[in-house]
């Protein structure tokens, strides 16, 4: 009997990263911009997607991958807007992984412009998993409080965009928008921040414009 020590130096999430990189490459080749939406439950991811569907429908093709622990409810809401949607039911798992997205790959139409992935409502675990997205976006709804960025730093440091949702509730909440933005930019100075209300339809156009320009950039890179 002999003992041997070996140096491995392998990333524990290396296989997820590898699958995510393959997904990103394949989607980019098709000219599809992929957006991973992260937030706590009830921050308004699905409602934002319903609004996106209304705004983008005339000129662009979008599809949605919905992640939930149980039920097909969110995918049904998106389909009701005339948008293709697939539901991933994790049956308890707190996050989506790249291989779950990879399994749906054969069903994703090649002529899409935007693919949205709505992650499981959870501000912790999804932040560790690359799904092959081009843009990671974290949502923070005003009722959750303006102190979240430093409480859940990983979700904010790994995101490209922050969408503050339910801004219409600010007059009745102790939510300090300036403070929330300051806190968010301290954990991630590169965050692009959008302040939105789906109910009042404010701020959504700016977010749409941002995505459209990112789509053009992606296609220019391909050309």
């Amino acid at each position, binding site marked *: *009997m*002999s*003992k*041997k*020590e*070996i*140096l*491995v*130096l*392998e*990333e*524990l*999430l*290396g*296989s*997820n990263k590898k699958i995510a990189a393959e997904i990103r490459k394949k989607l980019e080749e098709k000219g599809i911009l992929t957006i991973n939406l992260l937030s706590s439950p009830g921050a308004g991811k699905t409602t934002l997607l319903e609004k996106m569907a209304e705004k983008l429908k005339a000129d662009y093709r979008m599809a949605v991958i919905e992640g939930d622990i149980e039920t097909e409810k969110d995918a049904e809401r998106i389909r009701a807007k005339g948008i293709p949607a697939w539901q991933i039911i994790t049956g308890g*798992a*707190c*996050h989506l*992984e790249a291989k779950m997205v990879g399994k749906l790959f054969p069903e994703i139409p090649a002529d899409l412009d935007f693919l949205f992935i709505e992650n499981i409502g959870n501000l*912790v*675990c999804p*932040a*560790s*998993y690359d799904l092959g997205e081009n843009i990671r976006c974290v949502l923070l709804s005003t009722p959750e409080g303006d102190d979240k960025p*430093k409480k859940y*730093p*990983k979700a904010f*440091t790994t995101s490209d965009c922050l969408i503050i949702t339910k801004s219409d509730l600010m007059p009745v909440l102790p939510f300090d928008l300036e403070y929330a933005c300051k806190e968010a*930019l*301290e*954990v*991630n*100075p590169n965050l692009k921040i959008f302040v939105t209300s789906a109910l009042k339809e404010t701020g959504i156009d700016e977010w749409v414009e941002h995505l459209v320009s990112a789509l053009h950039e992606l296609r220019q890179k391909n050309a």
Partner: protein
Amino acid sequence: MHELSIIASLFEILEEKAKEQKAKKIVSVKLKVGALSGVVPEFLKTSFDIYKKETIASGAELEIEEVPLKVQCQKCGAEITKDDFIFICEKCASRELKTLSGTELLLEKIELEL
């Protein structure tokens, strides 16, 4: 709480390495876990002890080295070890910081019995 699924990924690597080396057992496992890796070392240990039963690593010890978040200011060059996640240089207030370490989630080494 995604530590159990991370431990499942760890065991995929462990089984592959044990096979490559034709090992009988894995005796010890050492991980490097960054402060900004998004996982809790204590939960990794608990998950490891649950998962290891009836595997090649059933008797293995898990050692975790916790790696603090270290950044380098791109303006003044200062290297700072952070105990918070505020990406502002404490010396010159610049926001151009490069992360040097603290985000890793790494299997560093294993000890095998051949």
